[in-house]
């Protein structure tokens, strides 16, 4: 359970930012390794790329795009908070970041299937 002193929306936004940041940090090395196969072992890359036809992989990609988008928009929100004049709409902006990320990742998913 989230402890009482943390039970407010902007703490959840922080949690989401950290989880998405760590998720991306774990994913990127794998991603770059896969891309490097295009040069070092093209046949293996083609073999691996065939997995992306599986629905379960598409759902996972949806998750990755969501993580990237929510980290991107959330990161822009934090940088605006730090470097632009203060806005009283902090919670609205955090929820907009999530909504935009959901929109981007869902349109990606709909195009993919």
């Amino acid at each position, binding site marked *: 359970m989230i*402890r*009482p*002193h*943390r039970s*407010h929306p*902007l*703490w959840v936004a*922080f949690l989401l930012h950290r989880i998405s940041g760590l998720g991306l940090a774990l994913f990127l090395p794998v991603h770059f390794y896969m891309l490097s196969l295009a040069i070092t072992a093209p046949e293996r890359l083609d073999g691996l790329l065939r997995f992306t036809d599986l629905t379960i992989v598409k759902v996972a990609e949806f998750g990755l795009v969501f993580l990237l988008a929510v980290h991107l928009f959330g990161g822009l929100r*934090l940088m605006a*908070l*730090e*470097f632009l004049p*203060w806005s009283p709409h*902090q919670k609205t902006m955090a929820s907009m970041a999530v909504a935009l990320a959901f929109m981007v990742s869902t349109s990606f998913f709909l195009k993919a299937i």
Partner: protein
Amino acid sequence: MMKRIGLLTSDTKMMTVSIWREEENDGRFEDYEVPARENQTVLDVVAYVQQHIDPTLSYRFACRVGMCGSCAMMVNGAPRWTCRTHVSKVVTDERLEVGPLRNLPVIKDLATDMDPFFEKWVAAEAVFHPSATRDDPMAAITPDDPMRIAASEAIECINCAVCYAACDVVENNPDYFGPAALNRAWSLVNDSRDAGQDARLAAVGSNGGCHNCHSQQGCVQYCPNELNPTLSIAGLKRETTKAMFRWSR
């Protein structure tokens, strides 16, 4: 005949409060039966326990009207100024749990050692450095001066450490100055009479400084005086960033 304990009659409605008891690092919550009055603050409940049940209970308060900042405690897991927190507003599931303020060492029971909190105010250069003497004329600062307006927004701090207890960065980084000290430093950055700005920016930009803050805004959520330390810290982040370019030239 009616049985009387203190001011109680046998038909007084009662409630249970769990209070943290600690001595020499050995602590646990203990339950007490107190009157469930319609109108009482958390501090009233703690005082009742000390006055009518166990006189050895230690806690801190002074003004009882939200001025002095000495009565802050964890109430049902969240930091509150207890003298102005009504029990009826914070009980959840008929439960009231009162503990010492988070992120500070406990001296005894509900009384925490505030020294680390105030030492960080000094470390953050949240201290006024005069630029004039008593023989100089008074500095003229008009109420509509933008710096004065920015300072005013941060100035009503009562040093209660509620924000300090709400902050997860304070919990995880013992060097972090915390929201209150940085908020005070920001009000001084906006004091045109102050002569210590470079030292202050160096202090708030140091390891324990403003760049530790993740903008979770727990401090804003709980500050009883509705101050906005996150706004102040964002201001310090901007000013230290600008100073970095000035100083590297």
